[in-house]
């Protein structure tokens, strides 16, 4: 899974080399893809590193990472706290499904970006508003996966538990929930990824002066592409890192599973 493999670095290395060549010799300009020669686009790798270093030095980068993770946590915790119970409810009770499922299905296709006005109306320019946008992105994978996990519970296991004296509550907590844990966990993992992708949407309308998602449009507007790239890379690397950590946790937590 996260073993050291030469190939993993070869691909990234090759990409970096191509990037540096394109940047250093201004290939995009000479190919006519961008019009202005003076524009440092794409920025060279050293200039991105320099930009990164500057922003780390003056604290902007660190604060931005902190704020973005903070916003992510608000959204993600909200999504888990609301999504899991709702998924269980709709998976467990047919009637609840009839009532709630159409609502979910209508709201689900609305992209997080479209919720910005509502977020601002409800929360103003606050961290909650940013968290709300991330919540919108993160909520549905949790609900849908929890629902499928619960609904897919092996009937035989439920019957077995009944013959061993389990009541409704026991069935839920001792059979259905453990059975759906892998599905729920993978839902949360998807949410983590989707939520992180929503960071730009969540911060671009300016809930604070810091945040990875705020800094990208900010530097883009003043043509500082070296900074834009630095923030994009940090966004990508942190997303990747979180996923690795989550996967570790998942395979430890679900070690009872028979997997390939």
């Amino acid at each position, binding site marked *: 899974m996260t073993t050291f493999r030469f190939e993993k670095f070869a691909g990234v290395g090759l990409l970096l080399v191509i990037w540096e060549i394109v940047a250093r010799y201004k290939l995009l300009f000479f190919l006519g893809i961008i019009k202005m020669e003076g524009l440092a686009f794409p920025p060279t790798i050293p200039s991105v590193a320099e930009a990164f270093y500057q922003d780390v030095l003056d604290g902007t980068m660190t604060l931005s990472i902190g704020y973005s993770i903070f916003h992510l946590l608000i959204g993600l915790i909200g999504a888990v706290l609301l999504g899991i119970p709702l998924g269980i409810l709709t998976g467990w009770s047919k009637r609840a499904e009839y009532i709630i499922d159409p609502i979910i299905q209508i709201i689900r296709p609305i992209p997080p970006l479209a919720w910005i006005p509502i977020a601002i109306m409800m929360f103003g320019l606050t961290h909650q508003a940013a968290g709300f946008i991330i919540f919108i992105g993160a909520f549905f994978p949790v609900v849908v996966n929890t629902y499928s996990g619960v609904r897919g519970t092996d009937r035989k296991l439920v019957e077995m538990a009944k013959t061993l004296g389990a009541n409704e509550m026991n069935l839920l907590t001792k059979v259905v929930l453990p059975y759906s*844990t892998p599905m729920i966990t993978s839902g949360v993992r998807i949410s983590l990824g989707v939520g992180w992708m929503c960071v730009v949407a969540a911060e671009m309308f300016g809930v604070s002066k810091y945040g990875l998602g705020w800094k990208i449009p900010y530097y883009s507007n003043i043509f500082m592409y070296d900074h834009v790239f630095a923030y994009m890379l940090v966004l990508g690397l942190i997303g990747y890192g979180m996923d690795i950590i989550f996967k570790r946790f998942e395979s430890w937590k679900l070690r*009872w599973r028979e997997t390939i």
Partner: protein
Amino acid sequence: MLVIIHLTKKFDGYTALEDVSLEVNDGEFVCILGPSGCGKTTLLRLAAGLDFPTKGELFLDGRRIVGVNNECGFVFQEYVLFPWRTVIGNIEFGPEMKGVRKDERNRIAQHYIDLVGLRGFENNYPHELSGGMKQRVGIARAYANNPKLLLMDEPFGALDAQTRNLMQGELLRIWEKEHISALFVTHSVDEAVYLADRIVVMSARPGTIKEIFNIDIPHPRIRTSQEANLIRDRVLKSLGTEIEHARNK
């Protein structure tokens, strides 16, 4: 113990069981034999209260069976272990539902783990066990719940002949020790003759009781003894015509 009176079970028009009456006495071991699809599993499910009869009634110790009760220990053919629980966790499930304290149910589970010979595997997950071991967990789990009646649906069907013989011996040992009744479904006449006090042969479509054989040979039985052979022949004949019958229909 278990009394089944004029039981009929239909699945949307299809009659799985028709007018089945049967009694399982205290401490009795009853085997059910019959062609595939004659309603053996259905009968066990009804006895466990997992399904409802279309007509007729079932009683357990004089009380009518309506819905699941935890006085029957069910052993499914496909093990049906909780994969997220270890061996001991699976066996503790019943006592846990009853609210038995942790150390007490641990003691109970340990007792049955020893009984089925799984010592050393307490903390293994089901996917780490062989088929025979899983089946023993299933049996231990049913026992640990202290049932009055064991309902076993081809519990040894998936085992090789040797493990199967071994498990039959163990089952008898436990059964004699714990003195409970058993309703045991099997496809193997040998198995039935080795285990049962009574053998019920069923006919198919619709499932009815065709013939009942009493076996008075004391345990432990010799599989190849003359008496055993005699009964085996009679049961085989009864079953054979039934299977022919089921095919021709």
